[in-house]
Structure formats: structure tokens, C-alpha cells
């Protein structure tokens, strides 16, 4: 008890008394608090001097801090401190870390890159980033594409060829997939027969008689399907005509339908309307050669190449 009393100190009042008995406590702030406060004022002043701070008419005080960075065109610039320049400077630093790897990719042929485990690890991560930034908008994050819109890069079907060289060519030049509409050239019965045949090629159950008739039509001059898709209907990568005999569907969403009529309708629709939306933009001007090379290996790995 005695100790408690000793420790408690009487609180002082400001000394004024209002209305005879109203008084005000005087509890000064702790020293450490005061000093923290003064230090924060000092900090603020230094901050104003170093960074852009005060608005002045239509401008502002730029601060004495400077940032030097290399912009996208390779020009070295020095500006007052601002967040964009700071970001550019950080990006320069990161690019410098990546440079040895990109240089290595640029210097080696594809066959050598494919055998280098460290470069493969680099491409798996750097390629993923490049793919996400440039390709994933259409081809989706994992390259799985979307039936009826964008081809799947993760399967083993390559419209224009799956070698490193072909993939690089596709990336640099872009591609334009086109199939003429047959809605006016052929009757709807003929289109129905063709649809039966095309479905049967992929192992779907169809009316055999109709499919056989469709086969004849496929190879006839009337429809002329074989010009692009080939005599064996296995497609022609040179012009990007897809293989019709595999299980992969590019435009007609056959796997998404369960009813026979709907599958037929999907195929009929493609034959009738044709296609001219299979456009892959050219990236040769937009990306650096070493970036294209990284993407080539990345996409090759996605689908296993050919």
C-alpha cells in the first residue's frame, strides 16, 4: 500500500478556477511524444525539399530529387522525381537482371535452347509473363483458347505447323484464316450431307448413308472442300486449313453439344457462313526478336510442339 501511494502523484491543475469550483487538469504530453512530433515536422520539411510537394499557380515545386532512366526507345532521361520515372527506373533495373538470359536466348539456335535446363526455366517464367501481356487476351491464360473464337495452343494440333520455325513465323507475320461461305453455292441438303460427313470424320455417330453421300460431295468440284482441306481431309498447314479428322474443333462447338441435331447445326453453320475472323495480328514490329524467340519456345512447350 505504502508503495502505491508513493507512486501516485497528485495531478496539477492550470490554476484557474471558473464559477468558483471549475478547474482544469494540467496533463502535459509525454516528452517522447513531443519529440516525435517535432521530428515529424522536420521530416515533412525535408520531404517537401526532396519531392514534388506544393502547388504553385499552374505548376508545383518539383523538388530537388532527380531520377535517371532509359525510356522505351532507349533514350536516357533525367527528370525530377515522379512515380512514373521511378517505375521506369525500377523496370530498367529488372531488365538489366533479365538481359543476360535474353541475350543467351537471342544468341542460341532453338535446338540448343530446348536442351538448356536453365534457359527453359527462364522461358517458363519470362514466357508466361510475355504471354500474359500479349497473347492471353485471345488465347487465354494457359493458351487453351476458346472454341469458335481463338485456337487452342495447348493441344497437339497446329494449324500452321508446330515447329519452332513455323511458330516464329506465325508470331512475326501474323495469320489470316479464311473459309468461304457456301450458303449460296450449296443447297441446305448438300450442306447437311457435308456436315454428316465432317462429323463422321471425327468419330461421331452419324447416318452412314448421308455421310457417304457427303464424302462424295466433299471430293466433288461442286463443293470443292478437298482443295483446302485435302483429299484425306487432314488439312493443309501451308494455308492453315485445319485437319477435319481429329477430335479438335476450332469453330464449330461440337464438344459443347450433346444432341446430334445441335452438333450437325453447329457444323452446318460454319459451312454455310464461312469464316473470315481467324485473324492473328503480326507481332514482328511490336515485340523484340528475343521476346518473340522466348514466346516461340513457350508456345512450343505449351502444346508439346511438332
Amino acid at each position, binding site marked *: 500500500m505504502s508503495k502505491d501511494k508513493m*507512486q*501516485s502523484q497528485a495531478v496539477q491543475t492550470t490554476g484557474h478556477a471558473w464559477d468558483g469550483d471549475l478547474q482544469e487538469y494540467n496533463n502535459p504530453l509525454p516528452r517522447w511524444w513531443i519529440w516525435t512530433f517535432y521530428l515529424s515536422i522536420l521530416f515533412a520539411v525535408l520531404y517537401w525539399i526532396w519531392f514534388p510537394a506544393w502547388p504553385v499557380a499552374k505548376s508545383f515545386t518539383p523538388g530537388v530529387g532527380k531520377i535517371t532512366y532509359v525510356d522505351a526507345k532507349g533514350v536516357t532521361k533525367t527528370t525530377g522525381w515522379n512515380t512514373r520515372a521511378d517505375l521506369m527506373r525500377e523496370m530498367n533495373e529488372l531488365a538489366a537482371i533479365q538481359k543476360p538470359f535474353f541475350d543467351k536466348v537471342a544468341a542460341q539456335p532453338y535446338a540448343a535452347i530446348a536442351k538448356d535446363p536453365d534457359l527453359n526455366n527462364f522461358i517458363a517464367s519470362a514466357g508466361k509473363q510475355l504471354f500474359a501481356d500479349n497473347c492471353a487476351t485471345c488465347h487465354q491464360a494457359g493458351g487453351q483458347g476458346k472454341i469458335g473464337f481463338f485456337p487452342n495452343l495447348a493441344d497437339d494440333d497446329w494449324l500452321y505447323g508446330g515447329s519452332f520455325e513455323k511458330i516464329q513465323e506465325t508470331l512475326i507475320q501474323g495469320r489470316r484464316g479464311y473459309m468461304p461461305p457456301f450458303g449460296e453455292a450449296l443447297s441446305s441438303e448438300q450442306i447437311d450431307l457435308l456436315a454428316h460427313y465432317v462429323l463422321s470424320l471425327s468419330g461421331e455417330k452419324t447416318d452412314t448413308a448421308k455421310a457417304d453421300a457427303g464424302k462424295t460431295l466433299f471430293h466433288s468440284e461442286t463443293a470443292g472442300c478437298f482443295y483446302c482441306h485435302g483429299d484425306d481431309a487432314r488439312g493443309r498447314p501451308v494455308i492453315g486449313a485445319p485437319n477435319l479428322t481429329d477430335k479438335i474443333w476450332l469453330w464449330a462447338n461440337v464438344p459443347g453439344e450433346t444432341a446430334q441435331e445441335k452438333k450437325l447445326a453447329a457444323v452446318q453453320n460454319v459451312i454455310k457462313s464461312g469464316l473470315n475472323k481467324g485473324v492473328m495480328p503480326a507481332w514482328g514490329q511490336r515485340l523484340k526478336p528475343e521476346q518473340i524467340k522466348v514466346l516461340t519456345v513457350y508456345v512450343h512447350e505449351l502444346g508439346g510442339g511438332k
Partner: protein
Amino acid sequence: MQAGIEEQSALYQKRIPIFQRSIHGSFRRFKWAVLALAYGVFFGLVWLPWPRGTEPSQALLLDIAARKFYIFDFVFYPQDLILLSVLLFIAATLLFFVTSLVGRAFCGYFCFQTVWTDFFVWVEHLIQGERPARIRLYKQPWKSEKILKLGATHLVWLLAAFWTGFTFTAYFTYAPQLFVDFFTGQAHSTAYLTVMILTVSTYVAAGLAREQICTYICPYARFQSVMYDQETLAVAYDEKSGEGKLGRASLRNGMKTLVERHAQQHGDCIDCTLCVQVCPVGIDIRNGLQYSCISCGLCIDACNSIMSSVGFPRGLIRYDSEVNLKQAQPAQPKLHWKRLKVLGYGAALLAMTGFLIVDIASRSDFDHAVNQVRAPLYVLLSDGSIRNRYQVRITNRANHDETFRLGVRGIPEAAADFGNFHEVTLKSGKSLMVQVSVKLTPEQAAKVTQFEFTVTPRSRPLAQRLGQARFYAKDVL
């Protein structure tokens, strides 16, 4: 004046300075021994070389930048975080176990706050003299003697604090290199900042704040009472024999022998206050167990030395339990370990220590992890079969290069395509990711939902390890 204002206590209490008197005795000797050991390990270990070939040759190095933690012959990686969790769990359980047996043994003897404060007080004693001299100096005006002595004390404190901060930092980077870089101004700014922060915090905590850290800042001081039982041994004052019926009494004439004192119904305590003078937290142990008491045992040393010198029985202040002190005739204090709580802590301690030892002993020289590529989860291929892709990461933890062979179990060997990396060679400490695609026909896929990857080091085929993987094909079947 309004009544009640005088009774208001201030929000902020100024520190009451404590001038700790030095004392000799068994607890003090034990504390010096702990201090010597702790300082020897802390300041010495960082300089202990440990040859590791191309890796840094420092016995204990926590290389955060490279994410590698070297502890003698072991190298730990961030994925071994579980071991750190277990170690922390062991530390906590050990603390609880010891506390419920013998009170705050950690606080009094092993806590770095106590050890550093002890050292700082020793410096103070060396430069300014014993307690009375220090009190005299404290009351003096600021003249040359006071400035000189206090200045010297604070300078030595700052140097000790600096070396503490530097040593701590040196555990996180190669110490000899840091030493050179630091004093030639070439070290990383983080190193300077860390050393500065630790210098200041050590100086403030051990030099200025001292017992306030324990009473106001340390949470453990506040919750340790939860672990105390009636049977817990703690530093305690034997009130019955110390106070008698009429209380303590000084050693005046007619009160000099035990017979005389007991006849007049006074206790053994001669109220010399030495136990208060030696207390590092400035409490009077005779008021009973208090939350500020860090259980350092110095008051036991003090009381025993006085009792011996006046020929009274020792042990007026001793380690004893509340339940024993309550008895009419207190028995010899002993450890009460046959309690459910103590046994529980002990069991947890044994189990986790066992786990840690077994886990470290059975550590393999390499690490592997299988991650499935989830976007897309599966791909339908042109011939109707289904492909899943995986990323297998292998880390070579051995201190030599190793070649690993990858394989599969539970599916045909031909179904897995490892590309060019069926076999990979990894340098010591390096890790590599291998992309694998697995292709199954719908018939196979219908039967397989799970399989294993095998990772086999070529030099020791028996050390093969398995990595579980799933095969997804549900939606296409």
C-alpha cells in the same frame, strides 16, 4: 478546492531510478556463468569458420538474400519453414514447462534483456562505484566528476550496444566481409540501418529503460501468472519465520539472538533492506510475489549472506511454493512435477523435440515438389486422348552435384513426356523446374485418378522419392 483531485494519479509515471547493489552468492555465480556462456556463443559463433567448398564458410549464416540458412553441416531453405515453427513451438513449450515448475527462470537468468542489463550494470559499477557512490553521483550537480563518469559509462554502453548490433547483423551476411565493408563505408545501406537500429534499441533497453522493459513492454511478464500454480517454486519470503507475530525488527540490543527475538515474538528478518538494494527491478520481495519480480534470485543471495553473518538460519528468502509456505511447519521445498499441467507440457515438449530430431535426421539430400498446370486443367488431343501437364521442381540440398532421373509410377512409362529433361544434373544448392506432360487414352484415364512421379538420385538409387499427382479428365470422359 474540490475533493478528489488530489487522489487522481498521474497518467504517466516517471521512472524511479534503481541503484542495484552488487552481491556475491550462488545465484550471482550462476548468472555470471550464463552471461559468459551466452556472450561467448553470441559474439563468438559468428566468427566460427566452417568450410563448405564453394559455399560461404561461416558456421551459422542466415542468408536471406539467397534464401539459404547455413547451420553447421545443415543447409535449410524457406520450404523448411515447418522446422522453424516446430523449433518455436518447442521454445514456447519449454518456457511454459519450466515456468510451471520453477517460475520465471527464463526471465531471471536467460532472457537477453536480463543478461544485457546485468552487463550494463556491471559497467556502471566498474566506472561509478558501488550503490552509495552511484546515489551520491546521481544527486550531485553536473560537474566534472559526474560528467566524466556518466559520460564514460554511456560511451562504453554505446560501444557494447554497437558491437551487439554489429554481431547480430553479421549473422545475416558473411561476417569477415561485412567487417571490412562496414568500416570502409561499402556495406549495404540495410546493414548500416540494422546496426543503427539495434545499437539504439540495445542502448535504450539495457542502459536506460531496463526493468521498464519487463514491467511495461514484455507481454510475458503479464501472462506468466497463468502458468503459476500453488505448487510452483518461486522466489519467496518466508513470512512466518521472518516476521514472527510482531513483525521484523532491526538488530538492536536485546534482539541480537534468535532466542531473544523469538521470546519477544519478533521474526528472523533484521530489516537490513539488502534484499531491496540488490533487486534489479526495485521491489521488496517481502511484500510477496509480484508481477515485476523476474526471479533472478539475487535477494536470496543477499539475505543468505546477512543471515550467515549474524548466525541466523539461512533461507529466509528462498525458492519455495505457495502451498508449502502456507503450512504451519513448512517442509523442505521440492519440485512438484507430478501435476497434469507439467506432465502435459513435458509430453508436448518430448513429442515435438522427437519430431524435430527425426525430421532432421531423415532429411533427404534433395527436395521435390509436383505442381499441376491448372490452366487448362486438361487438354483434349487430336487422337482423342487427354493430356495433363505438370511442373516438377527438384532442389539439390546435398553439398555435391547430383544427377536426378525422373520417372512415373501408376501409369505407363511411355505416357509421360519429360522432353529433354528425363535426367537433370543439379549443382549443390540449386533447384530446377522440369515440365512434364502426361498423355493417357480415355480408357486409361478412366482408371487413373492418381499416380506418382519418381525422383531418383543417380548416386543413391535407394533414396528415390515419390511425388503424388492427380490426373484430371472427368469432363471429357
